[in-house]
């Protein structure tokens, strides 16, 4: 019987800060102190604290330690575990000026959060199916397979109002109903875990923290539409997500939760992992399908849409990781429960990643309808170095630009759409007032220029041309005509590009031109002055 549990966050972020060495030392020193039978070390996903080094949580006290180094392990063992005295210097404080919260749930940054998708992340061992099951895992699948018909599952999903979390916010239940109506067999469920959008790492942390939730969501989708095979398409660079999801699939098979005749219901479903090879465009659903088919990941013409003609020409549902992780909860607790969260038109929670010039970067899950000000200042603790807020970009590098006038706008799909932005992938890039907007836009365009798949001329040539114009402007040799040309080229691309990449690339450029045109003009005249 273990008296104490120590959770060590082993996610991609803490690994980059030395978590592996701390874990090894912890295990070794617990053995040396003969505590291995009393203290259990559990590796878990992200607990939601970033950039603060290696994170440990000691239960049952619920004390969070951050910045733990190999040298600190002995002290934690001798002081906290043996003598029961918390090592104050390592205890996590949410706001530097305030006393440390006893447990992290009491910390202000967690106060506004509601964890649905992330309910298990950082709390359970993602490599243990037993822990997932102990937290209601696979109960929704059991319920659906034994008490619901496929059309009931789709009806519940429609009623919940869940909109896809991959960026386009298409209603999930509706998408499923299209595939369900198709006669062709086999059908496929694809989990889109490509996540190439800069600033986005929510899907990675969901997969690292709670892979079974994604598997269960895929199986439910499979049951609803009549598919028996699923693919997880995942970035090749996401080593930890890949190994965790692989192991989880294996465990689910061993427990009869994947494979033939699940729960004796006659429903069969299995999942295979497909690794990407480095291409941002492969997040676009039809490019992703091409990539699974072993080809260059170039987008297809739509229609037909994947729910009718998708992978290997068969009906295919492509859903984002976060979308799928919502599904088991909706089926288990019901659409009405889901609708108590968020707003009327944007139900549920949203997982955001806060990055850029922000004191407390990281991953949060909040109800839809929260304001930018709450996210940046209450949860993110504002901007470092006493600098001011210049702009925020919502939804990754293809996302729209928000400025101080939007700080109190409730973040919902419809509100952002109205101002020509979007929630997109949920990445929130905060930019302080010391940054140069022209350089920032140049950075955006460099990205698109690099990632354009080259299939259509407008995107391939257009991004290159935009980059030339920006280089000229930023070097002080530009003119007002260059700014106008940039604007008209961007507008043309938005209207005419073949796929979502080329259509979205101009969004942040036009946004920056709209709100910060004077900065571009100033860059041009800086050169003119120098020449005079």
């Amino acid at each position, binding site marked *: 019987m273990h008296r104490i549990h120590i959770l060590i966050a082993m996610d991609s*972020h803490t690994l980059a800060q030395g978590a592996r060495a701390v874990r090894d030392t912890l295990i070794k020193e617990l053995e040396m102190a003969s505590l291995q039978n009393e203290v259990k070390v559990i590796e878990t996903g992200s607990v939601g604290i970033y950039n603060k080094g290696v994170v440990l949580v000691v239960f049952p006290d619920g004390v969070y330690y951050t910045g733990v180094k190999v040298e600190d392990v002995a002290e934690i063992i001798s002081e906290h575990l043996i003598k029961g005295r918390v090592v104050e210097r390592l205890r996590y404080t949410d706001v530097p000026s305030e006393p440390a919260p006893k447990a992290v749930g009491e910390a202000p940054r967690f106060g506004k959060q509601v964890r649905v998708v992330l309910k298990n992340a950082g709390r359970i061992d993602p490599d243990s199916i037993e822990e997932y099951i102990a937290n209601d895992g696979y109960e929704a699948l059991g319920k659906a397979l034994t008490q619901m018909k496929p059309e009931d599952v789709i009806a519940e999903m429609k009623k919940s109002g869940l909109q896809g979390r991959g960026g386009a916010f298409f209603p999930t239940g509706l998408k499923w109903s299209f595939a369900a109506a198709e006669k062709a067999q086999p059908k496929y469920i694809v989990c889109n875990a490509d996540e190439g959008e800069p600033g986005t790492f929510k899907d990675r942390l969901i997969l690292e923290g709670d892979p079974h939730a994604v598997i269960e969501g895929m199986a439910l989708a499979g049951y609803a539409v009549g598919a028996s095979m699923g693919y997880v398409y995942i970035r090749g660079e996401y080593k930890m997500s890949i190994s965790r999801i692989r192991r989880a699939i294996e465990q689910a098979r061993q427990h009869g939760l994947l494979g033939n005749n699940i729960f004796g219901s006659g429903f069969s479903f299995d999942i295979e992992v497909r690794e990407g*090879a480095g291409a941002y465009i492969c997040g676009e659903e039809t490019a992703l399908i091409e990539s699974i088919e072993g*080809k260059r990941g170039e987008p297809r013409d739509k229609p037909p849409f994947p729910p009718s003609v998708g992978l290997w020409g068969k009906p295919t549902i492509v859903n984002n990781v976060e979308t799928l992780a919502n599904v088991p909860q909706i089926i288990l607790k019901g659409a009405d429960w889901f609708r108590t969260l968020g707003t009327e038109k944007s139900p549920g929670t949203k997982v955001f990643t806060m990055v850029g010039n922000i004191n407390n970067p990281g991953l949060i899950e909040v109800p839809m309808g929260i304001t930018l000000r709450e996210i940046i200042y209450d949860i993110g603790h504002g901007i470092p170095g006493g600098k001011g807020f210049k702009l925020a970009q919502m939804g990754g590098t293809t996302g729209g630009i928000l400025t101080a006038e939007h700080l109190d706008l409730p973040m919902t799909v419809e509100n952002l759409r109205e101002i020509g932005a979007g929630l997109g992938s949920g990445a929130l890039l905060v*930019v302080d007032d010391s940054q140069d907007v022209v350089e*920032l836009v140049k950075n955006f365009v460099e990205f698109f220029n690099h990632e354009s798949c080259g299939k259509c001329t407008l995107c391939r040539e257009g991004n290159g041309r935009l980059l030339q114009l920006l280089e000229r402007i930023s070097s002080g040799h530009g003119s007002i005509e260059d700014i106008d040309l940039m604007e008209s080229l961007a507008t043309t691309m938005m209207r005419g590009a073949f796929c979502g990449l080329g259509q979205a690339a101009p969004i942040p450029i036009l946004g920056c031109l709209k709100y910060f045109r004077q900065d571009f003009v100033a860059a041009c005249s800086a050169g003119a002055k120098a020449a005079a």
Partner: protein
Amino acid sequence: MQNLDRVDEIVKSYQDVKTPLIYILKDVQKEFGYLSEEVLTRVALATKIPLSEIYGVATFYSLFTIKPKGRHIVRCCNNAPCFVNGSKEVLDKIKEYLGIEMNETTPDGMFTLEFTSCLGLCAVAPVMMVDDEVYGNLTPEKAVAILKDYKMKGLSNA
């Protein structure tokens, strides 16, 4: 002389997988270091996929390379979240330390320098990846110290 029979073995190991070309190329690259014309021709022969199509795939994805590279591949992120946290200064320092530009290899064959797209580690930006290992919270000094370590290890192994 490279043993091209390995290509056939790799292709064979994927016979149960539908459309496995990307996996095959990954394994082949691991085996041979890069995807030379000779190797790709053999893949075409073994898979019966036209060479032109295979070449198209090999040049499309950034994890594939059709040119030989250094022993360590340094992939730097310069996407917006890293950029606003100072990745440009880090990158400039790395270029200066290695004495090469982007997409070049040091004369001793130790390092190849490349960009990577966002690695999803933006909460510890700026970030770089050396081979399979990731490093966050970089400063110009820290980045150089990390590369020095690789160099030392390389020299002592040599």
